[in-house]
């Protein structure tokens, strides 16, 4: 287990409001990690910083074996470096088919001319079929993504995330709007993915996290309140205070 992502001493201020306050988190490869915390604790902002959407006021974000700083990179460069993200609200390209959505996410060269002269290959088609089967959308490949149900869109986005084949998966509330059976399936997928790579999951649902059975980081007011197994952190008095809203 080596450290893949190191966030240290990061702070962000929005309009005088400190969303992230001297946050430090390390994620190893492979690892499955859950991040929990009350609303406004800075969970999503943490993902925004790692993926380059938000620039922190101070602090370092170091990536990979070569210790590259992610702060100077654009969103797309970070994505190409191997960080994939699933958004809280499913964002798929609704005007395009499920197949097109997956094909776009498929790990390939991303330059405009590479894409322009890209030729569909049987290997790519096979990979898409494999992913579609995994997310239960094999029969929906020619359908427009906009026609899918909320849960199916969640699946599609997870499928796109897997198609990217990233080293680090940042997953924001993957189980929202899913049936218990689908949740279980999601847990399986995430657990399997975490066997070879780093996966960070934000969730509110304690049941879901318990099933993941991984290390948990509790965020509060923009910094880490507690870290450890779920049982360990739920016995922490501070965490109990925060969650009970004292």
């Amino acid at each position, binding site marked *: 287990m080596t450290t893949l992502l190191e966030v240290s001493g990061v702070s962000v201020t929005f309009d005088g409001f400190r969303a992230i306050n001297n946050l430090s988190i390390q994620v190893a490869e492979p690892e499955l990690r859950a991040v929990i915390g009350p609303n406004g604790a800075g969970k999503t902002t943490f993902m925004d910083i790692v993926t380059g959407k938000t620039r922190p006021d101070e602090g370092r974000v170091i990536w990979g074996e070569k210790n590259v700083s992610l702060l100077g990179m654009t969103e*797309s460069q970070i*994505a190409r470096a191997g960080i994939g993200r699933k958004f809280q609200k499913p964002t798929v*390209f609704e005007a*395009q088919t499920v197949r097109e959505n997956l*094909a776009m996410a498929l790990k390939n060269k*991303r330059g*405009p001319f590479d894409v*322009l002269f890209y*030729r569909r290959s049987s290997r790519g088609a096979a990979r898409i079929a494999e992913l579609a089967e995994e997310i239960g959308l094999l029969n929906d490949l020619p359908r427009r993504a906009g026609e899918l149900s909320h849960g199916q869109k969640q699946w599609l986005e997870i499928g*796109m995330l897997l198609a990217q084949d990233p080293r680090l998966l940042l997953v924001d509330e993957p189980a929202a709007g899913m049936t218990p059976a689908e949740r279980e399936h999601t847990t399986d997928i995430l657990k399997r993915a975490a066997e070879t790579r780093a996966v960070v999951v934000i969730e509110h649902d304690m049941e879901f996290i318990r099933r993941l059975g991984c290390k948990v980081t509790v965020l509060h007011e923009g910094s880490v309140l507690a870290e450890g197994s779920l049982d360990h952190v739920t016995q922490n008095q501070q965490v109990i205070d925060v969650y009970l809203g004292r």
Partner: protein
Amino acid sequence: MSKPEIAPRKRFLAENPSVLWFLGCLALFTLGVTVLSEGFGLAILSTSMVKILGMTLCLCLIAVAMDVVWGYCGILSLGHFAFFGLGGYAVGMWLMYARTEGIVISSLSGAPIPPTQGEIENAIATQIFGVVGSNELPWLWGFAHSLTLQLMMVVLVPGLLALVFGWLAFRSRVTGVYLSILTQAMTLALSLYLFQNDTGLRGNNGLSGLQNIPGLDHLPQSTLSLWFFWASALALGLGYLLFAWLVSGKFGSVIRAIRDNEARVRFLGYDVESYKLVIFTLTAVVSAIAGALYYPQAGIINPAEIAPIASIYLAVWVAIGGRGRLYGAVIGAAVVSLASSWFTGGGALNINLGIYTINWTDWWLVLLGLGFVAVTLFFPRGIGGLFDMIVRKP
């Protein structure tokens, strides 16, 4: 390994029957116009009508380019007519220079002593720039003597402008309405620049006499108009094919994704800015080629052609025709521009209301404006949307 390489090409036309349909219609139309034209002999269509149709084909080409940049990539550029105009200027410079050169040489040939190169150049400069009170050839005209170089300029100048402008604009992530206003500002700056007398392009006089092709003086306009008509049809066909191929594959998938949610595309690892830049520049170059074919048929180009309003009209055509489908843009450009010349040319009968007579030369723009509002409000898919109804009903 070779099999999947061949397969997609087969699939392209098979998957896009509309392209075949379009090319077929275009070929039939070209054939029809040729047979009916004055140059061919039947003379049912006058030479000026052939020119109008040829020019309309050029407008269809730029409309297709506009559709790609706006309908597919989501960049509402209010500046593509600037590139169209630049293409026209680039080719117009050669046409005007070469033609003036011919006139000057023939007028000097009567002199007892043959003219020197310097004398010829001076005479040309005086002839061209006398109207703006200058008798020197500006540096801009350094390549004007050579058709090859000037044709390169048709592609290079608008291409470079689009590249630099696009790089600046996309890099700082100017999007949406702001980008539209920025492109409009670019067009305004360019037309203001060209309106000046001392910038080397004859100010508001523009370039004229472009319908006379140097070296082809012996051919009648009826023949030349047909040649340009064919060239325009060919350009439209090739341009349509290029863009249809561009938007059909994975590239098309990516740019449509950029249109719908560019932030999400970034998180997939695509460098959104370079895609936009490629599209912006490529469409600018195609627009310039369309302009280079248009103005020799129009005969005159002046800075008013580049004014911001022209680019907005372009957006109007594409919107009326139907965005996000290439044939929609062609239909929009053809219908609106032909209707425009029919109404303003006195083709439509005036309507006498007893107390007031509706004169269409005056009221056409009112009709167009209100019609356009109606299309935006009630038929956002434009005329092309009607095809969906027909095709998808069964």
